[in-house]
């Protein structure tokens, strides 16, 4: 069955092929396993980009396929990062505390160790006790479970409340933004138990792997990110190819009609919202060890809006579009904002890209929405000779989120 699935969906094979070639290429050019043509910090940038592609896949599933414009998925991404960050920081601090106490005459008691860890981690916020939410931080398996459980349960609770009252469209988007903001503000507080605005840091140091140089670690994380992206891509392509995919696209275009077929629209939305929140969390858990630091600013509402912009620029409702959009825009963004883009001297005014990049991004978003609603994916349609159906300007369904004529392919 899987074989026939790949055979009938050549785009999945092409995607996996390109991803593998890219991974091999980067490995060959890396410092750790190759010619050192690519710096370790750039390997990290590429690995992080793969994680952003992964969260974009989740966004495309929920928005591109099911029409739910959630503007809160980067909060789940950050929560995933926080959950893995707690273990990274705890276990690493434990190592430091243990080696400091090793010189004492008496072997340290468990309490001394825990207090030492707490003082180390929470000294910055003036506390010296481990908050209860760190109860699982000593255990990697438990904390890995929390990576999907915490965002998953949060999404389940939020989604249940929102979908049950049939909140849709723009109201749902606003609600997700408000939720994101509330979570960020809570995290900013010192007594949230997650070090307030200091966030969690030193996440690039993997406990137990102190002897492994960052050059190697960065490639390992790059591989893990590529594997997660590839696996998720195949799983989601399979998910949208069957009747489930049909139902969620139908919900996007005309959810009232889907109800009369006997499908519980709210149940499907809740399922998708929770599933995509967990995918976003996994992406975040892979991203932040490569970034090294996470703080509440990562939950800024604007981050989730960028996510939607990436998917729109890549072309929504096609998985590869989300990947292309996220990779293209985020790499371009780090090039422009990293100060590497040459400033343009107009004589009377110098365009400094660090300041003007956002304006450029906003402008391209508007232009894409108006003139190329299929995004970058439209170029692929051109190559494959697909064209939009002639519907005389009508969208493909009555709902706000329905595909517009120009987005549809034949």
């Amino acid at each position: 069955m899987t074989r026939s699935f790949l055979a009938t969906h050549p785009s999945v094979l092409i995607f996996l092929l390109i991803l593998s070639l890219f991974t091999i290429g980067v490995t060959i050019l890396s410092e750790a396993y190759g010619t050192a043509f690519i710096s370790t910090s750039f390997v990290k940038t590429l690995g992080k980009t793969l994680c952003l592609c992964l969260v974009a896949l989740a966004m495309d599933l929920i928005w591109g396929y099911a029409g739910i414009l959630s503007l809160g998925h980067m909060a789940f991404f950050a929560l995933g990062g926080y959950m893995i960050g707690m273990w990274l920081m705890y276990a690493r601090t434990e190592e430091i505390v243990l080696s400091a106490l090793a010189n004492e005459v008496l072997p340290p008691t468990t309490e001394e160790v825990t207090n030492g860890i707490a003082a180390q981690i929470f000294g910055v916020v003036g506390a010296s006790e481990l908050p209860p939410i760190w109860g699982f931080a000593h255990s990697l398996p438990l904390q890995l479970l929390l990576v999907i459980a915490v965002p998953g349960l949060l999404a389940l609770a939020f989604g249940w409340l929102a979908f049950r009252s049939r909140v849709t469209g723009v109201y749902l988007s606003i609600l997700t933004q408000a939720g994101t903001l509330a979570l960020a503000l809570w995290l900013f507080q010192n007594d949230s138990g997650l070090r307030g605005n200091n966030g969690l840091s030193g996440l690039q140091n993997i406990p137990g792997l102190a002897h492994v140089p960052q050059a190697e670690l960065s490639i390992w994380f790059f591989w893990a990110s590529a594997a997660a992206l590839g696996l998720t891509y195949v799983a989601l392509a399979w998910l949208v190819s069957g009747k489930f995919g049909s139902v969620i696209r139908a919900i996007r275009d005309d959810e009232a009609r889907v109800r009369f077929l006997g499908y519980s629209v709210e149940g499907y939305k809740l399922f998708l919202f929770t599933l995509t929140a967990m995918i976003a969390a996994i992406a975040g858990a892979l991203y932040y060890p490569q970034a090294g630091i996470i703080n509440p600013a990562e939950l800024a509402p604007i981050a989730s809006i960028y996510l939607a912009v990436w998917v729109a620029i890549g072309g929504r409702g096609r998985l590869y579009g989300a990947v292309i959009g996220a990779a293209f825009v985020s790499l371009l963004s780090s090039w422009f904002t990293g100060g590497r883009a040459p400033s343009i001297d107009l004589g009377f005014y110098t365009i400094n890209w660090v300041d003007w990049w956002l304006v450029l991004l906003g402008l391209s978003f508007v232009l894409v929405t108006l003139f190329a609603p299929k995004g970058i994916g439209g170029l692929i349609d051109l190559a494959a000779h697909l064209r939009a159906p002639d519907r005389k300007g009508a969208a493909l369904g009555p709902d706000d989120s329905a595909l517009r004529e120009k987005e549809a392919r034949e």
Partner: protein
Amino acid sequence: MTTLLEVSGISVSFDGFRAINNLSFTIGPAELRAIIGPNGAGKTTFMDIITGKTRPDRGTVRWGPMADSLLSKSEAEIARAGIGRKFQRPTVFEDQTVAENLMMALKANRNPFAVLFWRPKPADHARVAALATEVGLADHLARKSGELSHGQKQWLEIGMLLAQEPKLLLVDEPAAGMTLAEREHTTRLLVDLARTRAVVVVEHDMDFVRRLNCKVTVLHEGSVLAEGSLDHVTKNPAVIDVYLGR
């Protein structure tokens, strides 16, 4: 005679306007019924209430041998209980193929987890093909339904309704946009279906209703004006008034 659906004393107002006024209606498990009435009589609203789209201000809707109340159920639950609906304006999923539309409507477990792992078996493909043949769309299975003509969309929607295998079919103006031959086909289909299940047809076209050859309910200003055979109701002075008096 046993009843499948019993609607009694329902009323609904939109911003003070009484669209349905103390309406009662019953239908048996294998019965064909036509509902006629002038524009704005409340025919579509009546279907909206049965299918859970609109909640009545007053009255009860009871369903099946256990006389379950439908008023506390969601649209999806009502559909799963066995009430299928064809809309006045054909509504199919235009971005999807005829086959996908039919496959979605096919009677099966509607739970998200079940649907996720559901893959069509040869029997399901055969059923979709048979339905498509029945509604004359066998050659169009792979086409996006958005490309179909108005009449073909009507047929596709009828096919989707059949695929659901409902116990009660509510059909709102099925013949609009159809040719004479297609109308005759529709009539035959509906009469045939009513042998095994209940069918309620809303229609303006009197010739169409005559060919259905069934009991007729006349709605006017949200309540039942007359009920009986077509000849019987068309002789009713109140009905003549409503149809000719304006």
